[in-house]
């Protein structure tokens, strides 16, 4: 079989898998799909490594892929533990709920396209105002909602 053609095709597939994973990581907001995208990027690198190993007739590529497999298992264990922990705090898998972790000079993200939640607001009893209402930092209010 033409070894050069094989290498070229595998490098192209590896690059495609890596980029698709990258696009998925950048665009999707569900934390679990973001982690699936990371695994897909690892797959892209593995495909390229196996192809290079075949081309050079060297076992190093396949050995590295075995190590990548192990790293992926470690990463999945810790990532899923963190996702579960985040879900328990915020009540949703949306990564935008954690935007209070952004840097100071970044603007807050508001999603205008988000559909309104169903159901009416509950009726709260009206209390007599006691003193001036304190002003709160909007970031802190978002932060308090899920801590």
């Amino acid at each position, binding site marked *: 079989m033409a*070894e*050069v*053609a*094989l*290498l*070229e*095709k*595998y*490098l*192209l*597939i590896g*690059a*495609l*898998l890596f*980029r*698709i*994973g*990258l*696009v*998925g990581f*950048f*665009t999707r*907001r*569900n934390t*679990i*799909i973001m*982690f699936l*995208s990371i*695994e*897909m990027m690892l*797959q892209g690198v593995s*495909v390229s490594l*196996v192809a290079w190993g*075949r081309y050079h*007739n060297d*076992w190093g590529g*396949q*050995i590295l*892929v*075995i*190590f990548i*497999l192990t*790293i992926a298992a*470690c*990463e999945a*264990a*810790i990532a*899923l*533990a*963190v*996702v*579960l*922990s985040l*879900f*328990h705090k915020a009540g*949703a*898998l*949306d990564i935008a709920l954690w935007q209070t972790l952004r840097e100071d000079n970044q603007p807050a993200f508001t999603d205008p*396209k*988000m559909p309104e939640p169903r159901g009416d607001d509950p009726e709260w009893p009206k209390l007599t105002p006691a003193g001036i209402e304190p002003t709160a930092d909007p970031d802190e209010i978002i932060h308090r909602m899920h801590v």
Partner: protein
Amino acid sequence: MNTLLAMIGGATLLFAAGLWLSLPRGRAPGRALGAVVVAAGLGLFSAQTVSLGSAIADVVFYLIAALTVISAVATISFRNPVYSAIWFALSLLGTAGLFLFNGAQFLGVATIVVYAGAILVTFLFVLMLAQPEGQAPYDRVSWAAPLSAVSGALLVGLLTFVLADVFQNPVVEERPVAQVSEAELADGVLADQHMATLGRWLFGRQLVSIEVIGTLLLVALVGAVAVVGQIHHRERGGPMHG
């Protein structure tokens, strides 16, 4: 050269447009069209590569490759995360097929066992634990979809151009098989005794790495248990860092 550039440019445009169309964008239509456009772009990309030399090998390779990449696109474009996980499993099967096609038999089977059998099932468990009912609003919109799709497709296009340029005018002549010595072939990646040779490499030259990676697995296990254990600790009302 100019034809090559035009073809790869067209493939990049098609791939970017298809990716953008198929990503979730609220109620906007066109996701089926996106899949067709992505397939067209992939076809145009693959037309730039050199043939494997035999028609059967080409057909088998393109079938496996199409399965892998199209499932990968479906993984990032489906709104329901459970469907995404299933498509990712299909993409993994395709990757395992690619490994087998390249003579990496152990890796092909290990990918199915470790990824599809263990990691993906864990993902599904967490999805069932954490997924609220129905489609969540945050699964229906994407961040900066056009920009990501264009940048991703541009990088692939650039790489395809470099690859096609290098491999259609090879700088280095391919070494004929006859010049490879018998000992090299018997010990190389296409050896008859695949597992025996791989095992000799893994537990001979890479022995220290195996020890290190085993320790890393243990550390990751302890870390995961510590992170999850904190949830239960907090729910029982104990101090955060007891």
